């Protein structure tokens, strides 16, 4: 054994195929893990941004709708602003940062009954839904009583 060591002293040798493959695999896994982590954090950040903008645009539209007369308000039922085409009630286009959002308006006739007072109030339930085309990001709902004639 000792003679063998002397005859073949510790010489550097090349990597075997298995060693090289193991090294490449480890490197690949590390790179993939880092990439996946960055992508996931970007996705979460983008989702958060969309939700902030969705909440703002839902509030904005509700605020604008409440300036309409009762009949005009009812006429807005079924309005759809597709994703990327949001406009204000007066037709002003939203800036690029809102590109991922769309809105729908529904106006439903309802009668609210207050049992303790035994009174009923008829009106409309205005509902705004902001989506990114696949999921609901924000909603706003307001009951508007019918004006007394």
């Amino acid at each position: 054994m000792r003679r063998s060591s002397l005859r073949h002293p510790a010489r550097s040798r090349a990597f075997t195929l298995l060693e090289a493959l193991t090294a490449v695999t480890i490197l690949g896994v590390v790179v993939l893990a880092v990439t996946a982590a960055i992508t996931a954090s970007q996705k979460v950040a983008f989702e958060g941004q969309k939700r902030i903008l969705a909440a703002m645009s839902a509030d904005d539209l509700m605020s604008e709708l409440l300036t309409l007369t009762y009949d005009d308000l009812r006429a807005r039922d079924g309005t759809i602003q597709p994703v990327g085409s949001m406009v204000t009630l007066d037709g002003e286009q939203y800036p690029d940062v809102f590109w991922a959002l769309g809105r729908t308006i529904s106006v439903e006739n309802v009668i609210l009954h207050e049992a303790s007072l035994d009174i009923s109030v008829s009106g409309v339930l205005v509902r705004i839904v902001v989506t990114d085309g696949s999921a609901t990001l924000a909603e706003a709902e307001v009951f508007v009583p019918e004006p007394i004639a």
Partner: protein
Amino acid sequence: MITAQRSNTRRALTLLELLLAVAITVLTGLAIAAVTTSIARGLTSMNEARSALQRAYAAHARLRAYTTGALAFISVDPDRGIAVWHNDDRFNNRVNLSELRIFWLEPSSDGAPGKELVIEMVAFPEEWEEDELELADAELAGVDDPFNEMLALRAQGWTKRSVIADGLESVAVTHSAINLVHANRVRIALTVQIGANSTEDILMAFGLPNHKAPG
């Protein structure tokens, strides 16, 4: 003996091998540095964009809170700000000074880049009697500049101010009515700073369900 034999079998790197090794190490180092820098830049930019959006959201919420129930936007000056008739507490269909709110666009007070949106409203001394209040709470005539009126009151120490947004570059107001005081819907376009060199445009739509133009 063994040591002597081993030393015979090992040889030093040739100059070419050494240069090659150095070059590979340098290139690998540069590549890693480039990737790290790019990731860091991306994360910084993402954080700045998120921060800008949060500032815009805060500005939106506060502007809405301070204009809820407002009667009319009465004046806009791109260099100074927005004047709002908030209520008609004196029931005279005129804008009294105490019913006025000014949203000033001012250079940042702490020296930070960008501008601040500051709300200022009248706060007469609490110990005043009603007749003193009525005397000081003058009606704003059509020719009066609401911004100058508020500055005059500030000089007397009769206003209170608070910052509602910072990191802004500009504020603009648009509407579709004949003139601003007759608009029951207005849009406020905010340009928010993102980092040192870029900006984001945010649009806010405000409805004034209680709208009325001052007489």
